[in-house]
């Protein structure tokens, strides 16, 4: 019998969190917009820590402005800071879009960001004239003491879509809400969409902004903006697409809103990690567009299947896996390791969501294993659990590296943040290609750890 055992956090204190605050998710989302500039309405730390985190993980610059709230703002409100901040950003950087992201402080002092944004728009108009017209200023409410970074991401996508999307001529495109994933993942999604003969509008697209080429500039134009990201015009056009696929279960509001307001049908699913989830993703695309899944993609699928047939039963079958991190990624990986014949014995996420346990129940049935599901938990809980219930391999972010080291369990790094290895943000874990990469990584790690280097078993 397979079943899940849901374990919720029993302490009040949180020890080594597996989640972060709403503004993070909103900053991530706005970064995926071409010439989009996040401005955080809070203290310096609210932007500094996130920029630091992005720089560590992506090894890329990330420009995030802040309104620098100080004592006077705490007492008298942050109106001046926000109005001035938006103005300064607009006239100096001339972005296409400014995402105004609230924080715990600005929410507690009760700043009317919508009103302040209106004032700022007026001021920009006075100062810049015609040039101000193209600058979109979009307030995004992200109180840090409510839910997590996922909610912030969701709120940002919803705010941007609600503000910009306009019904017009049909465009034969599909909208994709990728969730909090890596540049490599978005590129893999683009590849899948391209193979299907489609064009996608990504809400939003961090692939180039967080993995930008270094090429000598041919002009002295300032400031530095990375190439890529979804354009404001494309976001406007998202109201005219054939459908929206959110591969992030926790960020479906934008998709729902497009469905409700503009009759763009929505599909909200787990991310395409592994065989069945990728199949499902392609099925959604087919449903919205009527395009068939091309032979070349079936070949890609076949290569992954071939590799699984070659190796999974020999090296991976029955191996126990502990997975921790963001809810979408962990459910996807749990299903995939199940497909590889491994046992996801513990899956932990810091986010709470009713969907999570349901998904895991389904996976337990499929894999025939008993899964301890830790919901709204932290990394300390993972550590304590693994001391009692050892596994063969851990899959999660770099924050678990010291636990892995102490317990002697190899760690496969996925998710955010990964700061102690290079290149992980560039490799996809989505799609058939991502599956291939992830499977090779897991298999080679198992070979390294559990097979004697001189043993005959390592040879064919």
């Amino acid at each position: 019998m397979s079943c899940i055992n849901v374990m919720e956090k029993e302490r009040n204190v949180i020890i080594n969190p597996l989640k972060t605050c709403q503004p993070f998710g909103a900053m991530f989302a706005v970064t995926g917009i071409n010439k989009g500039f996040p401005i955080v309405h809070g203290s310096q730390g609210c932007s500094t820590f996130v920029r630091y985190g992005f720089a560590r993980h992506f090894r890329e610059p990330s420009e995030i402005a802040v309104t620098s709230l100080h004592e006077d703002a705490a007492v008298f409100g942050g109106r001046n800071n926000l109005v001035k901040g938006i103005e300064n950003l607009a006239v100096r950087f001339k972005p296409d879009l400014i995402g105004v992201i609230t924080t715990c402080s600005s929410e507690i002092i009760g700043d009317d960001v919508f009103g302040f944004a209106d004032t700022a728009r007026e001021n920009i108009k006075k100062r810049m004239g015609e040039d101000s017209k193209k600058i979109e200023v979009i307030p995004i409410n992200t109180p840090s003491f409510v839910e997590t970074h996922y909610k912030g991401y969701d709120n940002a996508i919803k705010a941007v879509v609600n503000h910009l999307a306009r019904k017009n001529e049909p465009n034969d495109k599909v909208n994709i809400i990728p969730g909090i994933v890596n540049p490599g993942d978005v590129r893999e999604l683009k590849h899948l969409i391209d193979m299907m003969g489609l064009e996608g509008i990504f809400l939003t697209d961090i692939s180039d902004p967080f993995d930008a080429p270094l090429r000598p500039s041919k002009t002295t134009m300032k400031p530095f903006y990375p190439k890529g990201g979804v354009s404001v015009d494309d976001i406007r056009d998202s109201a005219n697409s054939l459908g929206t696929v959110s591969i992030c279960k926790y960020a479906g509001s934008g998709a729902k809103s497009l469905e409700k307001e503009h009759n763009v049908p929505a599909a909200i699913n787990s991310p395409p990690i592994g065989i069945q989830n990728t199949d499902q993703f392609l099925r959604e695309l087919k449903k919205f567009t009527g395009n068939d899944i091309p032979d070349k993609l079936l070949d890609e699928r076949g290569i992954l299947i071939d590799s699984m047939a070659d190796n999974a039963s020999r090296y991976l079958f029955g191996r126990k896996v502990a997975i921790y991190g963001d809810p979408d990624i962990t459910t996807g990986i749990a299903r995939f390791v199940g497909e590889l014949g491994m046992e996801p014995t513990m899956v932990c996420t810091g986010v709470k969501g009713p969907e999570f346990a349901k998904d895991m129940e389904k996976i337990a049935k499929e894999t025939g294993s008993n899964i301890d599901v830790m919901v709204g938990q932290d990394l300390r809980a993972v550590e304590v659990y693994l001391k009692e219930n050892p596994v063969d391999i851990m899959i999660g972010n770099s924050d678990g590296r010291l636990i892995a080291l102490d317990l002697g369990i190899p760690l496969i790094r996925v998710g955010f943040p990964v700061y102690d290895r290079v290149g992980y943000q560039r490799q996809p874990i989505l799609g058939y290609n991502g599956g291939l990469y992830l499977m090779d990584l897991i298999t080679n790690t198992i070979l390294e750890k559990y097979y004697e280097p001189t043993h005959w078993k390592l040879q064919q």
Partner: protein
Amino acid sequence: MPYKLLKVDKEIPEREKHVYVKHCSDPEDQIPNCNTKTIPGSMSERGCAFAGVKGVITGAIKDVIHVVHSPIGCTSYGYGTKRYPTSPDLPNGEKFPIDNFNLKYILGTDLQESDVVFGGMKKLRQSIIEAHKEFPEANAIYAYSTCTTGLIGDDMDAVAKELTEELGTKVVAFNAPGFCGPSQSKGHHVGNLTLFNNLVGTKEPIETTPYDVNLIGEYNIDGDLWVIKEYLDEMGINLLSKFTGDCSHDEICWMHRAKLSLVRCQRSATYIADLIEEKYGVPYIKVDFFSTKYCAENLRTIGKYFGLEKEAEKVIEDRMKIVGPELEFYKSKLQGKRVFIFSGGPKSYHLSKPLEDELGMETVAVASQFEHKDGFEKMKSRVNDGTLIMDDPNSLEFEEIIEEYKPDLILAGVKEKYLAIKLGVPCLLIHSYENGPYMGFEGFVNLAKDMYSNIYSPVWDLLEFEDHVEEFGAEGVKIESGTNSEESDGIKEPKNRGEA
């Protein structure tokens, strides 16, 4: 006019006073305007006061539990952000049972909406009690206020006082919400004051010697402190307390018993040295261990104070024998290279002159995120005429400086590093390090080596596809073609970039 309005700042003319070009005829007290509020939306590189306390001062202490009283963000971001390793050794000869405890765990109250409405003190109390239960081996519990706690008005001190009695373990509250003060520097101040008021003078050292010192403002980034400790050990000087690299809670409690305090980071920690001198009569000297000359000079000063001159000379001689020839090599390679130093605080003045005197480089600009008046005066006194001195640069200014001053290398933090690289300029981490330690004699060689490998990396010769350059011409960024590689002392050299 000594002040300079950069082109990119024409919309925020108040920045003019923060950007200063040194000129010998200026009055001595003319320096950039500093330690004032940041201009909103200007893309400053500053952090908040909470970052100043936990990220810089207390996070290096190895045997305490850190509880952040905040919504989840501040706790998540407080985890493992700075590279300050610790050894398990405690002053009583025992070993702390959890390796690198300070880097391994961060705790928080994960405040929710209801806590914001009804107050978070109950949750803080429960969290600290649970933290104590989870890690009974810890020698103290430090709790941190954040923007949210500051705004909802939770009385952290009351909870700390109550629980200190209840748990029998010292609980200390640090009241530096993110919004207090113009930068993280305010957090350093609060951290110093809190540790002084709550801990210093509350315990007696296990044993004392006539050569006891406090090493203050040294956080052991990449093992810096261990380098200095070795020199002092060899001289016969005893590190009674460290503030706070590789430090234990108890060491702070008996800082008043030292014979002398040595202040290394003079921005973040002079406060406590002043307080200790004032209350307990322990004098302090400001020290500087970056570069061989400063290091030798300061070891001599310390030696003189304790009558250990010979011992100091021996340490210097032993090290110089090894590092002298190595530095000669790097000097031959770094000669004339232009450098822009953008540090948090004092590193801009610690390094500007040594890079020129000992490695032949040219410091074209120095800047700081949060330095105060005294630090900028020092920066000014150590740079040449024409050098740019900046307070709190923002990223557009950063781009303009690169364009106008054409540095060959930038020393800065991780947020600036990748922007510099995108603009085609190598950038070395100076807040945490690339391959440190950077302090002391050996450290200076590490720094020189990292500067060398960054400037001479072949990548800078490969930025554009050559045919493409020939066909279209490279305007804007000028790409110079490399010369033939040569062999020297067995070190294979990459192509020379931009050799003047």
